[in-house]
């Protein structure tokens, strides 16, 4: 039987400012300082939170501020105890920008995931600005749980969470920047990803208007059977949290709906041959 260690997940649903990383650093710092706890705590901020997501061409003018803000965030998290934060940010490399997500812990940067599927349709222009990830980064261990990240639209492709699950992820973070037009889709997608993989899903969304697009919030934590454990408010700032216990993941996977046990690896082989 698995040990039950307390593990707290917090999703602060905050309004970030478009194109102003240093203002967002202040917002993040205020939120993070409130999070310190006796219990191992993972704080999940949304996709590209550091730049307010809807930057368009402004993305080309904020590299220095983004780098500085990330350094400051890392220092802040390292100065605290038992605290882990996940934050979405542009990752500037020599020849491209990625839509990335980094988890910081007491020992600094623990892992960075890059988004692979970049929505480039209707209001979305990510394909203009970012390079898609080449591969899926494996999950990392926080406490006795393994955490993987599928950034927003990546969660629409079951293969991405599946790879993370098969590499051991028990908690799937889905940082997102979803306008209201995507609301109904997320309602269906998120429990499906939880059930088919037997994982907790932590969905963290932006809130409020960015230019003329409304981001609907409703950040939520979903258990491995697809139940919404807790959900933040629609369209306004709110913070939600839940305790995640390893035995509930274990039971869901072993007894109640053992999708992972029953998954036939030959299906994956067949898929890879298509």
């Amino acid at each position: 039987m698995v040990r039950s260690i307390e593990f707290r997940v917090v999703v602060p649903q905050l309004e970030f400012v478009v194109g102003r990383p240093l203002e967002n650093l202040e917002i993040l710092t205020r939120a993070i300082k409130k999070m310190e706890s006796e219990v191992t705590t993972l704080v999940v901020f949304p996709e590209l939170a550091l730049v307010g997501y809807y930057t368009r061409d402004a993305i080309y003018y904020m590299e220095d501020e983004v780098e500085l803000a990330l350094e400051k965030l890392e220092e802040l998290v390292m100065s605290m105890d038992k605290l882990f934060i996940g934050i979405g940010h542009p990752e500037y490399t020599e020849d491209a920008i990625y839509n990335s997500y980094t988890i910081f812990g007491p020992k600094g940067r623990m892992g960075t995931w890059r988004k692979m599927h970049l929505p480039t349709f209707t209001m979305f222009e990510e394909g203009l600005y970012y390079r898609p990830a080449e591969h899926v980064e494996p999950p990392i261990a926080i406490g006795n749980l393994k955490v993987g990240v599928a950034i927003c639209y990546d969660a629409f492709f079951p293969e991405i969470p599946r790879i993370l699950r098969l590499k051991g992820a028990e908690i799937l973070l889905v940082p997102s920047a979803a306008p209201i037009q995507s609301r109904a889709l997320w309602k269906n997608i998120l429990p499906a990803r939880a059930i088919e993989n037997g994982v907790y899903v932590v969905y963290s969304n932006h809130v409020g208007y960015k230019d003329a697009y409304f981001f609907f919030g409703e950040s939520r934590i979903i258990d491995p059977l697809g139940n919404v454990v807790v959900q933040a408010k629609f369209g306004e700032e709110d913070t939600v949290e839940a305790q995640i216990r390893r035995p509930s993941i274990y039971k869901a996977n072993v007894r109640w709906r053992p999708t992972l046990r029953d998954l036939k690896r030959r299906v994956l082989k067949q898929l890879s041959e298509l």
Partner: protein
Amino acid sequence: MAGIQDIRKKLEGIDLELTKRLIIEFIKDYFRKSKAKRAILGLSGGVDSATTLALVVSALGSERVHVLILPVKGVTPEADLSDARSLVRKFGVSYSELELNSILDSYGDLMKDILSDKVTRGNLTARIRMSILYAYANYMGGLVVGTSDKSELLIGYYTKYGDGGADLLPIGDLYKTQVRMLAEHLGIPKHIARKPSSPALWQGQTAESELGISYEVIDVILYGFVELGMSKSELYGLEGISKNSIDAILRRVSLSEHKRVFPRIPKIQRGPTVGLDWRFPVWFGL
């Protein structure tokens, strides 16, 4: 394939309470970020401006809204004028009523022949209204809130830089049919919510007689084309709507594209060109 009834059902299936909230939040957000003090709004007594007024008052409070009623004596229907005045009272907003005849007469002295054309004169009237709205906006530290709806924007049924000249268009993503529904939802009197649409730029002008097709039909065509992505041949297959009507509406959409974009600029530089490949969000702070 969707029939007329299916399309109408979707068109009318809009969540009015959610729509109201999204528009109110938008107005609040825009005024907060722009730090504008007042909303300046031209009120005709028609459904679009009445609905916009209700939304702006809900978002900002009546004390931050100033209404302009800008009739042309002999052209503006008396019924519209009295509806506009009663709306101002209903929402408890300050207002100024300015008759435009003397301005139009002055323009007429300068260019008599040109303004004998009713369309030219009508468009000029719309642009005079715009210039007055902006004068008030400048003076009061305000933004001009436009009242165009999606049906009008798509078929180009408005005056470029006239009623089309505004800082924000709160109901610009709602079809006329939906605006009428929202109007009733917001408590706008039924006779205003259901009033036949008219720019009232000359005597007896109504939208439907000028367009030759009712908004009921226009909205089905536009909704099918824009929201459901129906092709021309799929639209032709709709029973009860003539091919001519569909062609006429789609032609209007296409011919009015110039009204929906920034004035075209021939691209010279490699860097982004305004209105073409220049892409920045509003509220980006360098």
